[in-house]
């Protein structure tokens, strides 16, 4: 029987294992040094904040793996031998494989800052990072978070939940401005400050200063300011974890290089998830995509190929989501931080400053390109279909109500949105017909 060895039990590796099991009878071994069982990395912040315990973050009960004959090894892979088709483990006997899947994920970026290895400095990706954060933040007077992205805001929220004052250093003009357009980036920045986070925009880390015990004492910013703190979270993005692969014949660039079938240059070796880099990026997407969903979809796809149904990885229209303190965010299609030459936009923000929608479409053809939505939930299914059908913006605005996914009794804002849109684009026809429910319930 073919033996599939998967290195890394994150969402990519685990999904691959599950789908190989669904489609075959192969022996499957899933190896991880981080944790024995698959857990949801996206829930890391909730463990620290006390919303959940570690065991709640495991998407499958522990008995699931045995029942599905997925062999789990909690160990560290030291070496991959692609000639012998064998992996060497730190404390278990070597494993022979027929097919190898590399799903080693990503590691926090550290840009060579002086002091980045001090006690009290950590990134936030793994369970081990969580342990460190827990240890480092006991009884401290201030924490500094470096890097204005999704992990940075999560770490800020975590420290805030423990009543630890937070200084949040963000290089861009507004929070996550390298992904979000100005309007919503400002809105989220305001919300961050509303939570009493000391948000320092257009500020970079220059140096981390130690005390006499080699612990963090302060950071110095590019403006020369020294901020006293006892903890520093480095959240300036992540990069593919290729440590294991570097010394092998498997080709890497920033990540492990793969083709459209997620195959590396070595036969029977695949790479998926955060560690993978496409030799040729899919049009409109980047070569390295490091979100939960892409990891999952690569896992699903590679499983098909390995089980004899060779298919190329071909994700549908881009989607993503996040939550910034109390404001939920979803995106469908492409909304870039700056408008393209051929693009036009419509931005609507509620007077509360907590709800917003940002539409981007073709200036001439009016074809809808993408939407960012804040505080109003929208249906993935609708936008997936609309993006594939390349409908125009008028259609989207007219049918916005159908895509609403907010809980019952929530206030509808479509009327406002339509009105604002028609005010800004009187030439674009919008049909506003809304079916009203009798008494609001039937």
């Amino acid at each position: 029987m073919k033996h599939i060895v998967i290195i890394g039990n994150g969402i990519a590796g685990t999904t691959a294992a599950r789908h190989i099991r669904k489609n075959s009878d192969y022996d499957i071994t899933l190896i991880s040094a981080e944790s024995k069982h698959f857990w949801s990395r996206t829930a890391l912040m909730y463990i620290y904040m006390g919303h959940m315990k570690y065991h709640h973050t495991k998407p499958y009960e522990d008995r699931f793996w045995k029942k599905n004959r997925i062999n789990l090894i909690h160990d560290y892979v030291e070496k991959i031998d692609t000639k012998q088709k064998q992996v060497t483990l730190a404390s278990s006997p070597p494993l022979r494989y027929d097919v190898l899947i590399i799903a080693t994920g990503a590691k926090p970026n550290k840009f060579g800052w002086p002091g980045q290895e001090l006690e009290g400095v950590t990134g936030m990706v793994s369970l081990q990072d969580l342990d460190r954060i827990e240890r480092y933040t006991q009884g401290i007077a201030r924490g500094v978070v470096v890097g204005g992205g999704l992990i940075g805001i999560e770490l800020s929220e975590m420290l805030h939940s423990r009543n630890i004052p937070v200084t949040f250093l963000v290089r861009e003009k507004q929070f996550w401005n390298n992904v979000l357009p100005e309007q919503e980036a400002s809105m989220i920045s305001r919300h961050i400050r509303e939570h009493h986070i000391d948000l320092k925009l257009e500020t970079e880390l220059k140096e981390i200063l130690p005390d006499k015990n080699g612990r963090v004492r302060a950071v110095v910013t590019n403006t020369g300011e020294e901020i006293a703190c006892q903890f520093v979270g480095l959240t300036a993005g992540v990069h593919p974890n290729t440590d294991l692969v570097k010394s092998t014949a498997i080709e890497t660039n920033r990540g492990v290089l793969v083709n459209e079938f997620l195959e590396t240059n070595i036969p029977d070796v695949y790479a998926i998830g955060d560690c993978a880099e496409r030799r040729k990026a899919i049009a409109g997407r980047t070569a390295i995509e490091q979100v939960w969903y892409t990891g999952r979809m690569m896992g699903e796809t590679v499983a098909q190929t390995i089980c004899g149904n060779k298919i190329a990885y071909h994700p549908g229209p881009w989607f993503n989501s996040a939550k910034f303190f109390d404001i939920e965010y979803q995106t469908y299609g492409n909304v870039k931080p700056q408008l393209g030459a051929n693009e036009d936009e419509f931005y609507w923000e509620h007077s509360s400053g907590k709800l917003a929608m940002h539409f981007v479409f073709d200036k001439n053809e009016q074809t809808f390109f993408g939407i960012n939505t804040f505080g109003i939930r929208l249906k993935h299914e609708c936008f997936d279909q609309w993006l594939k059908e390349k409908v125009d913006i008028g259609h989207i605005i007219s049918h916005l109500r159908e895509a609403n996914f907010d809980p019952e009794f929530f206030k509808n804002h479509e009327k406002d949105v339509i009105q604002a849109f028609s005010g800004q684009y009187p030439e674009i026809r919008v049909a506003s017909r809304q079916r009203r429910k009798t008494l609001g319930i039937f």
Partner: protein
Amino acid sequence: MKASLFQKAGMGIFIISSALLIVLLFLNKYRLTDAALERAVTDPSERKMLGTALSPMKGIAYQSGYTFNENIEEYLERENQHISSKFEITDMDIGNVISQFPGQDIQYSNEKITNAFDTTETGRFKARKLKDYTSWMNERQYESEQGLREQLENTRQNINTSIINDQGFSDYKIKALKLALTRHSSFGPVSENTTLWLVLTIGLGILGALIFILPKLKLLPGIKNDHVFHSANTGRGWIGYITGTLLIGFYVILYWYPEYMTSWMLLVDPISKVLNGHEASQWFFYGFLYTLAIGVMGVRMIIKYRHSKYHIIRTLSVIFFQVAFAFLIPEILIRLNQPSMDLKNIWPLNYTFFFDYNLSTLTSSGTIGIAMLVWGIILIIIGVPVITYFYGKRWYCSWVCGCGGLAETLGDPYRQLSDKSLKAWQIERWMVHGILVFSVIMTIGVLYTYFTGSSMLLGINTYDIRSVYGFLIGAAFAGVVGVGFYPFMGNRVWCRFGCPLAAYLGIVQRFKSRFRITTNGGQCISCGNCSTYCEMGIDVRWYAQRGQNIIRASCVGCGVCSSVCPRGVLKLENKDPKGRFGEPILIGNDSATIRS
């Protein structure tokens, strides 16, 4: 948010007032007087007998309710012994009866019994009993004296065991007397300053709780579950264990030892008299406290979830149904001399609905009684299936029901403690449906007895079934475990494992309803918030991460999974039943159709 000094003071006040409420039970003294007897017992002959039996206690001031009750029990047992020895049919009595039938080939006639006894009260009683118990033996032939003796011996045993019930104080009666006598013999600080004590305990308790709760308005609206699992209360820590123990203790006293909570009844007497014109029973106190708990913790619930109109509206709904339907209307009905009924309490949760005494009350109370009977039946056979078809069982369980109301308010801080394992789900299905079957069988038995007058059905005593049901399900499960286990197993232990109405609603919801929780394409990140905060222990994530509608019999539609979801994946919906049980499918990967 760290609790401010102000909030801590509120919590302090709440704890002190709760402690006072417990201390209060030990403040009053007890003295049995003729006046107390008068108020406690209405039947003059029973009162006279009691007065004699308990005469050694009269005028003594007891410091402790325990000793007082112990003495009542002791003297009544002594009286029982006395009665037994007085009325018991002896060997000699049997001998006398047999001597009425000399020789062989005896033909029995119970008319002859009268001659075997004297005409004292005892003699007449014995003769009457024997005549009654042997009337079926008339005309029977007995070959020898021995045959007749055996027959009479059996009869004698039956009679002797029934004597306490007829002439003395049965266990059941002693229980009731203890409560009535304790309540009316009580005197001391609580009786003298009832209002003051009411303010110091319940009043301060509400104040303290609100001082603790209201400042949460300062937090920005949104999901605030910080430190839920760090807390010694909500994370199954020592405070949780103390709270659970106190709750369990409360229910044990309420159901089985109400004679020790008479001071609490005194406390709410003024309120009870205003509402229904009578003194407060233990049930009035319980209903009062229950309603307050839903009200005050309802305020907390609304503040906590004030960013969600769904939670605000349904919390207001449970508060309304508790205050109006469960508490005020039944009391006012009593005042109007009408049968008291919680009009939203549906059989089989309301398991006494078809009990003989309830049917008799309703059928003998004119139009309004009949209307209540019809209303109750309509709810069972039309209300439940039709409304559940349109909205799912949530219309009842998390919008109307009293048990649900308490769970959604007082119990909300403990929702995350429910067990999500597959094992728990398996146990749940057997248990809750087993209890539904049990309740139906019990009710069939009760109705059989009501219509035929026979208490035996298929060799089982229907009164035994109902008392077992009342003890095990009605009291032990619904009360002691149902609420007492909040801090151990979450706030829906009863609803999930025990409630027969939830089982019935669940069957409708599972097979024939427009309700489901839909998932949003491929947006799930498997974080687990939904499963963690599901009070019914549904592993919501299992469905969400594979893009499958959540259609579960147990789902009470509280909507918290949807609220705690950080990615906007879950939505409670009533929609066309077509496609309700769709294939699980995740959107976003166009490489192949991926069936999760």
